[in-house]
């Protein structure tokens, strides 16, 4: 029989306001095994933990139950406290009487009753607990960063600077990401390229960083400290070692009609291309869909003009398998499709553009060489209307429920830059709210209004109507004046909502990292562990976790790097001891368990078994506890019950069921 101590936490008033804590203590004091029960204000505090330690020692407790917040919050805390007091940490069970009880129930009688039942279930379980000892697993001292934008680059640089090998996998032909497409950056208006390209060069030159561009993650297996990843290097059709980056092939390529991804489809590029002049690596790829050689078999001009002989039409996708200790996701974002927003005439008029497209228009290296002009006729616009919150803050499925966070600031930036360069141009911004929480952000926005005379109108635009003369009629509302406004414009810029890169879902599935309904990766704790995925060894960098601007992205990238470094710095990891274990006397050796094991952790051995005096050779399941992650799929597949999960055994779960239903 265990000697169980029960510790009921008030959590200030979080629990005590709706659960009669004293009553819980009283109700469970006579439960089987319970030899000690007490309550305290804050069990997780040092004093609370000291109480637990004292009781463990004085009452020779063999198991404890803490009735408190979610085990996801403080299970680790109480396990450590128990361990310090000499109790095996796996002899601790938590009854979640906060998140699952006091916070959701209002009636004190009802909540107290439920808290008692939850406590009883935990007591019943702990009575069946056995001390468990974690195993050890090794840590591969190498990190993988998925995505080569500013988030990925920064994370990789920080990890590499700490002395660890890092691989960056980037799906496009060059690193740089969205930031490379931007013209200037708020709130200081530095040129984006001027601050990004040095980082790109630094990453490429770093001896610890290895960059796979035009590559994708194909498969991920393993677990924290020991992931095995297949990286698909898509056929570039250009030998990276031979290419000198002279650019002649791109110049001579006769197929120049492909829409340029880098310019958001506003301009064209050749079939063999580097996305932009500062691309890293400066090695082109052949876009086989647009290449005449690949389409018709004829042409081959690039191969002829390439002095280095780098063109290789026969190149195939290559799979590289590499081991990593930590994986950082930095997959970034894209703007949403505007198919559902006909009212803004985006698909009807070339002069209605997204803000990201405007970046390419304003950029000196962009399609118009930085001249602000209408894409329909090349004329200089006189009146520009900006529309905020296009697809953000939507309750319906046309857009996204969240605020995209960056639009208020970049719109102020755009408005300011236009007014600065073209003082004759009238700029109007339709907004719902201007959100500028950030250092020097509101000052920046106010400058747009006060110094640059940008006309901010509180109210949305209902419709943009292309006019026969090529201009645009914007029908909006001024809520402060309570007037409907009809405004003639030459150009309309939509602050289009951003969404996580669509490929992130696939990657999250491979990593078994959880993802929310908006496809943002979920963090381990919204406040306290914002750069870690709940899946151990997976870290989050940049917009894949939630909308953020460049300074925030860089900060988070550094934080993710630190977390990854913290992991890589360890030589060994303690493994979760809650693994499956086969009872060889009961095992049929039928292989059902091995069939469902996602980790290949179960193998079979033929060995001599002594079954109550009968010695015979039997085929029995053996679990590799370093590989087993403790899901329990095998336990249910096993008809004889030979396979059980330590820490969540059949009898433990049944005892909880009984306690709840009694």
């Amino acid at each position, binding site marked *: 029989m265990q000697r169980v101590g029960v510790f009921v936490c008030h959590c200030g008033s979080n629990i005590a306001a709706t659960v009669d804590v004293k009553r819980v203590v009283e109700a469970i004091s006579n439960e089987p095994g319970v030899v000690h029960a007490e309550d305290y204000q804050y069990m997780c505090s040092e004093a609370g933990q000291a109480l637990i330690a004292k009781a463990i020692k004085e009452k020779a407790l063999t198991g404890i139950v803490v009735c408190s917040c*979610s085990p996801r919050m403080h299970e680790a805390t109480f396990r450590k406290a128990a361990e310090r007091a000499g109790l095996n940490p796996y002899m601790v069970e938590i009854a979640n009487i906060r998140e*699952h009880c006091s916070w959701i129930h209002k009636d004190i009688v009802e909540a107290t009753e439920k808290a008692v039942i*939850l406590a009883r279930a935990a007591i019943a379980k702990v009575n069946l607990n056995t001390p468990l000892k974690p195993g050890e697993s090794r840590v591969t001292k190498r990190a993988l960063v998925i995505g080569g934008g500013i988030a990925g680059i920064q994370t990789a640089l920080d990890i590499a600077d700490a002395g660890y090998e890092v691989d960056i996998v980037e799906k496009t032909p060059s690193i740089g990401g969205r930031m490379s497409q931007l013209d200037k950056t708020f709130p200081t208006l530095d040129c984006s390229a001027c601050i990004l390209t040095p980082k790109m060069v630094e990453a490429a030159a770093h001896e610890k960083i290895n960059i796979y561009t035009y590559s994708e993650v194909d498969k991920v297996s393993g677990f924290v400290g020991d992931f095995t990843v297949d990286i698909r290097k898509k056929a570039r059709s250009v030998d990276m070692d031979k290419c000198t980056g002279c650019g002649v092939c791109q110049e001579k390529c006769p197929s120049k009609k492909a829409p340029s991804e880098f310019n958001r489809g506003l301009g064209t590029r050749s079939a063999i291309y580097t996305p932009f002049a500062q691309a890293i690596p400066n090695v082109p790829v052949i876009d086989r869909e647009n290449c005449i050689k690949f389409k018709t078999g004829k042409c081959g001009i690039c191969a002829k003009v390439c002095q280095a002989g780098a063109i290789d039409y026969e190149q195939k996708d290559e799979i590289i398998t590499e081991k990593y200790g930590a994986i950082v996701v930095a997959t970034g974002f894209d703007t949403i499709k505007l198919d559902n927003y006909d009212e803004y005439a985006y698909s009807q008029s070339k002069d209605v553009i997204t803000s990201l497209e405007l970046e390419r228009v304003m950029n000196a290296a962009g399609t118009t060489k930085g001249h602000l002009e209408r894409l329909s006729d090349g004329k200089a616009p006189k009146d520009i209307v900006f529309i905020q919150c296009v697809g953000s803050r939507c309750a319906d499925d046309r857009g996204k429920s969240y605020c995209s966070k960056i639009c208020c600031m970049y719109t102020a930036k755009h408005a300011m830059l236009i007014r600065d360069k073209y003082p004759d141009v009238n700029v109007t911004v339709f907004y719902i709210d201007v959100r500028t929480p950030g250092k020097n952000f509101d000052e920046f926005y106010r400058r747009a209004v006060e110094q640059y005379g940008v006309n901010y109108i509180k109210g949305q635009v209902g419709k943009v109507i292309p006019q026969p003369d090529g201009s645009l009629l914007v029908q909006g509302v001024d809520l402060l004046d309570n007037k409907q406004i009809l405004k003639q414009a030459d150009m309309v810029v939509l602050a289009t909502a951003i969404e996580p890169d669509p490929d992130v879902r696939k990657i999250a*599935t491979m990593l078994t990292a959880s993802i*929310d309904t908006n496809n943002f990766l979920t963090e381990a704790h919204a406040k306290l562990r914002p750069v870690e995925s709940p899946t151990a060894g997976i870290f989050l960098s940049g917009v894949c976790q939630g909308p953020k601007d460049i300074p925030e992205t860089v900060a988070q990238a550094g934080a993710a790097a630190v977390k990854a470094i913290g992991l890589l710095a360890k030589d060994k990891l303690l493994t979760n001891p809650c693994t499956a274990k086969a009872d060889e006397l009961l095992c049929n050796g039928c292989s059902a368990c091995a069939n469902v094991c996602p980790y290949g952790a179960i193998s079979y051995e033929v060995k001599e078994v002594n079954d109550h005096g009968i010695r015979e050779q039997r085929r029995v399941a053996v679990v590799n506890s370093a590989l087993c992650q403790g*899901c329990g799929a095998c336990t*249910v597949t096993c008809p004889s019950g030979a396979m059980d999960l330590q820490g969540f055994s059949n009898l433990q779960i049944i005892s909880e069921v009984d306690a709840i*239903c*009694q």
Partner: protein
Amino acid sequence: MSVENQFKPKIVAFCCNWCSYAGADLAGSSRLTYPADVKIIRVPCSCRVNPMFILRAFEKGADGVIICGCHPGDCHYSTGNYYARRRMTLLFSMLDYIGIENGRTRVEWVSAAEGVKFSQTMNEFVDKIRSLGENVRLGDLRCKK
């Protein structure tokens, strides 16, 4: 008035540690209420839920059993919920086949971010069980108080 005599069902919710238990935590921290009749048992994965646990719950007097796991494709262990899905589908079908009201069992995929869904699901499920009344067909009468 009738609150005193209202049928208080016993409901067991098996929640996977990674998604649904966290979803329940989020429902809690967002103060999204659902009836106290629901008691959660934490399991590592929905695939840990043995049909014997479910029958055991009914035997001991549960009026409803709900299993919550990560959305298919999002399982922390990659594939656990796919196995759970087949197992539970077949088990529920069998219970239906022998005449147990099919509303007494349910599987719902609730992610860690779906506190609202968790609370809604539990409210719905409790309503359903209340409308079905006490579980008389599957219980062990000796276990009833």
